[in-house]
């Protein structure tokens, strides 16, 4: 019945966001006061009725695995199909890092082979966007494409440094894929979401292994651009790429815009995530909260302006938080003052501390720190 399966590929460069990825993958980065980044990729798939999803991991996976569990929040806890997580073989970890993701796909070709769906929807974890693969599939078939790639015409190219760019003709065919290294203004950015026939994907992987001419799937596709019909599927909605600390901060702040918030979270297409038991957030008589996202279980007695506060955070009386991101279970004590900060999980900021980062280089306080 179901025509698509999904693969989320987590092999990714973390050097520009390493302050936040010491103990986690980008996919398990907390986002928007409630989610982890991978929730967007996963929810896009299940909202498109995909119920066979493989996540191909690399690097630190503990927080990710804890988050994914049996896949229940995404309705992927199933006897048939459901959620599969593929780790690189530990003994060949160094090889993988050198060789790229083709090596991982190779180890799991049997999974691709026994899956029964006709198409594979592929995605990464660092793109925040709401994409409907069912529409994309209709478009893909209409065009008679071999591969369809989601792209977005963005005005702010500087927010998409290191992303892939695509050159799309009037017929929406893609003729080349490049890299957005410079700060251009308007540019067509690839969301790195692909739609491809399962059998073709298997063929590409097998070819790459035999010929040895590409280590990354992206490269394989690039190498075949001339011989295949590759189409661009334009995404018109919001998109952010969380591949650097600055972008993480920017995208977080974007969530405070009601139109973006409504587009991502209040439409028919939900974003699913692991559920935690928390009481409601409590706003005391002394609370001043303006333009903020607040997670459940927070107790707010101080001031929070232009900020994103995750669940279980306590903001004591007189504390002032502005332009900051506070991750779960932080304790912000009386009369402390935070501006342009990213406070990781379980941090305690003592009374009267004044901490001030910069909008382009937010100041990151590490997990479990006591300041």
């Amino acid at each position: 019945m179901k025509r698509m399966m999904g693969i989320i590929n987590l092999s990714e460069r973390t050097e520009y966001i390493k302050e936040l990825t010491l103990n986690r993958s980008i996919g398990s980065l907390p986002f928007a006061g409630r989610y982890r980044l991978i929730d967007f990729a996963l929810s896009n798939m299940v909202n498109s009725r995909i119920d066979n999803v493989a996540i191909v991991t690399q690097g630190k996976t503990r927080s990710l695995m804890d988050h994914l569990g049996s896949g229940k929040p995404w309705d992927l806890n199933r006897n048939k199909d459901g959620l599969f997580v593929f780790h690189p073989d530990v003994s060949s970890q160094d090889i993988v890092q050198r060789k790229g993701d083709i090596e991982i796909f190779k180890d799991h070709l049997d999974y691709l082979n026994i899956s029964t769906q006709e198409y594979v929807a592929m995605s990464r974890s660092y793109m925040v966007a709401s994409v409907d693969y069912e529409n994309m599939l209709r478009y893909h078939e209409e065009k008679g494409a071999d591969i369809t790639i989601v792209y977005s015409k963005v005005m702010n190219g500087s927010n998409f440094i290191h992303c892939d760019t695509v050159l799309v003709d009037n017929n929406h065919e893609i003729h080349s894929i490049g890299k957005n290294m410079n700060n251009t203004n308007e540019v067509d950015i690839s969301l790195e979401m692909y739609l491809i026939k399962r059998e073709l994907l298997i063929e590409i992987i097998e070819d790459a292994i035999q010929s040895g001419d590409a280590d990354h799937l992206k490269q394989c596709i690039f190498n075949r651009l001339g011989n295949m019909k590759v189409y661009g599927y334009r995404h018109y909605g919001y998109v952010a790429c969380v591949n650097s600390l600055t972008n993480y901060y920017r995208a977080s702040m974007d969530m405070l815009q009601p139109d973006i918030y409504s587009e991502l979270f209040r439409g028919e297409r939900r974003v699913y995530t692991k559920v935690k038991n928390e009481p409601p957030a409590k706003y005391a008589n002394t609370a001043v909260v303006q333009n903020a996202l607040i997670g459940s279980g927070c107790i707010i007695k101080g001031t929070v302006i232009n900020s994103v506060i995750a669940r279980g955070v306590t903001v004591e009386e007189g504390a002032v938080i502005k332009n900051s991101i506070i991750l779960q279970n932080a304790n912000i004590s009386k009369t402390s003052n935070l501006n342009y900060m990213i406070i990781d999980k379980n941090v305690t900021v003592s009374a009267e501390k004044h901490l001030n980062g910069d909008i382009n280089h937010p100041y990151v306080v590490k997990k479990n720190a006591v300041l």
Partner: protein
Amino acid sequence: MSQFKKEMIAMILAGGQGSRLKALTQHVAKPAVPFGGKYRIIDFTLSNCTNSGIDTVGVLTQYQPYVLNNHIGIGSPWDLDRQHGGVKILPPYMTVNGGRWYKGTANAIYENIHFIDMYNPEYVLILSGDHIYGMDYGKMLKQHVNMAADLTIAVKPIPIEEASRFGILTADDTDTIIDFEEKPPVPKSNLASMGIYIFKWSVLRTQLIQDENNPESDNDFGKNIIPKMVHGNFTVAAYRFDGYWKDVGTVNSLWEANMDLLREDTPFDIYDKKWRYYSPSTISPAQYIGPHAIVHDTLVNDGCMIEGSVNNCVLSPKVKIGRDSVVQSSVLMEGVEIGEKVTLENAIVMENVVIKSGKVIKGTREEILVVES
């Protein structure tokens, strides 16, 4: 986990309509009425069971059980999805002798003697699914065992002027109950029964069968079983409880209990990490508070979008409050949407009600308004 035998299992009476809650219980049983923005009333009793280490709970349903059944499921939020025991829903059913609705509270337990026997417990805890409180039943059991009682009734001292609304118990100084009167015009004591009973199962079993065979009986704990045991040859003890306890049987008392959560010195702390209250969580984003919003003395849940002014309120998930609206002393259930420039006071607004911009809706402290769609 190896033993099917349980020391004590709990039976929660959750079949009642709670007709004084009016529209709030038109389509759901009283235990399923939303409370505190995130919970339903029965969550507190279920969480008390979990926190007290009780892992086998029967829930007796009858009136409009769909929402309640769905809410409880197999009990995962309360850790009651267990291999042996856990939570089981017990609706009335048809047998080869035909179908019988539960006639009274005692009859509801009588019809499930089978179920209780399966676990062969020493003690059975009888609970109501419609009170808001936090209580360690383990402590109550300890006293029950120490006093070698046949029946222990949890009691709470109440203002004497309210006593004629309750079942009133008189206890001697060893906490043995010597008298019981249902809603006495001239109360002899200020100890109200909380409707929480621990029975020796062997004793209760016999009493239930005798009561069922008595055609005169209403088959009710308060009217039949308890008075008979107090005045008969049984050891009936009082277990004194001093914490917060509220029967939210009327619209006003439900509203008051919600408001109790908002006070700085709240008598009922839902943030206590040692005694958590559990409930299934909804899938919603973090709440959004707009640049012109004012939120004071309020509980807010996931998925809310607030752009107006909110004071002394309880907001369930996915509530929307537009700009320049002023919402005060109200309880807004899931999915309520308030337009712009609305004034709302002293109200309980039911699920998914939309209040259009410019409307003024006010209840009073004396008569809280229930806003239906």
